[in-house]
């Protein structure tokens, strides 16, 4: 589907990028980067950033075309230098108000760098609403959801998705979770969540998802931690 969009369809919306003065352990941006590519029109998305905690930001915004839209809210992303953990969480609603099926590719990225290896976890849940008077469908030709680091997929969910809904009905897409995923590489540019799907006329898909990773202490650090009690007991003696 990604190839189809790239080859066959009129681009594209654009990019929203919010900068902050804070610099956290290599993550130079406090804002998320949103990219919307759709066959249903073009235009620039908007986004507003709110700082929720020293290391987390909320994002509210979207892209509204004449007959289709993508909106997000409560997308929280951050990097905590104390715990060495980064995460991105997105609530996204994608709507097709046109009279034909449309493709959507939505990417939420957090820019920055972090040194691996990491242990990653994440999840995806969603609903499909058929707001039309005829049988509707939500499909994907590849993975509907991917979590990536520097453009390389580290986890994907709902491969070749195929959901049908009767007129004016809601279908649960289920929930998918993963944890303890070992990632050997470092983050040199970004980590991201991406949605790729096709919605029939009058369809709406909503997703909540999360992708997080945590630094794994290296062997030297573990050895140091292991030595601490020994050093302390020697001092007490």
């Amino acid at each position, binding site marked *: 589907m990604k190839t189809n969009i790239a080859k066959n369809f009129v681009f594209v919306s654009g990019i929203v990028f919010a900068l902050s003065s804070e610099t956290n352990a290599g993550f130079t941006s406090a804002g998320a980067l949103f990219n919307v590519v759709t066959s249903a029109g073009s235009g620039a998305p908007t986004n507003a950033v709110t700082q929720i905690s020293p290391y987390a930001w909320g994002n509210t915004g979207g892209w509204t075309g004449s007959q289709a839209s993508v909106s997000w809210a409560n997308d929280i992303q951050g990097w905590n230098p104390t715990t060495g953990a980064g995460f991105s969480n997105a609530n996204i609603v994608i*709507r097709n108000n046109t009279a034909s099926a449309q493709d959507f590719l939505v990417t939420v990225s957090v820019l920055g760098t972090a040194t691996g290896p990491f242990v990653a976890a994440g999840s995806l*849940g969603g*609903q499909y*609403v058929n707001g039309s008077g005829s049988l509707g469908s939500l499909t994907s030709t590849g993975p509907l959801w991917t979590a990536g680091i520097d453009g390389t997929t580290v986890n994907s969910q709902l491969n070749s998705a195929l959901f049908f809904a009767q007129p*004016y009905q809601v279908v649960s897409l289920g929930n998918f979770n993963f944890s303890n995923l070992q990632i050997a590489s470092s983050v040199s540019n970004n980590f991201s969540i991406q949605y790729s799907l096709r919605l029939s006329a009058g369809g709406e898909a909503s*997703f909540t998802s999360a992708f997080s990773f945590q630094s794994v202490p290296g062997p030297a650090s573990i050895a140091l931690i292991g030595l601490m009690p020994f050093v302390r007991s020697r001092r007490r003696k």
Partner: protein
Amino acid sequence: MKNKIEVAVALLSLGITAIESQAAITPPSFHFQVGSAGAASGGEACNFGSATQASATEWFFQGACAGLSGTSMSWSYMVDQDPFITGTFSLTNDTALAKSYVVDFSLPISPAISQSTVSGQVSGTLTDSNGSGSASLTSTSGGAVYTALADGLFVQSLMTNTNQSVASQFGTVSFSGGSFGQGAPLAGPSINSTIGIHFAFTLSAGDSVSFSSIFVANSVPAPGALAMALLAGAVGRRGRRRFE
């Protein structure tokens, strides 16, 4: 005299057409309100985002509200004054404590319905957004999470005594909140002014919930109109036979 009357009738019909076309481009007064701990925020949905006409009778509302301290919310709803409400809202409790929320959507209808059939459905997801390792969504005081309303009065409710939870860091759970009248619509009340959906739930600190829901009301033809329709069919068939 006859000419004058004809001109007056023509002008009147032009005026009616103008009023009708003006009405067609004005979005319906679709309201939302989100409340927690005695504080509330909301109003005309189009003042918190955008309203787009999707067809002759359907309007699409999209927006966001961060007016309630420590809470962010967004919605995407398709409405028709004929009437139905369908769409999704997402809400995140950014505070450090669990909060009870009440979220209302209300739509004026036109025309009024003397006897209705109704159907509805709700489904959702709950996510541990702050990575604390847990998230919970419960009915407030054991009540229903979803209540369909007509003229502000109870029609049907779903997700009574709900208790959904997530037990893994950044985990998500999807839930089907059930439905009523799907396939075979239920008999509903007469509806004069509005239909609405009322949500009431308690959400854990730092976590997100998303609800997709539908509420549809249809007019049941009055017995007289039904008889007329049946008679029209019979008359039509007799006419065809005579012609053959």
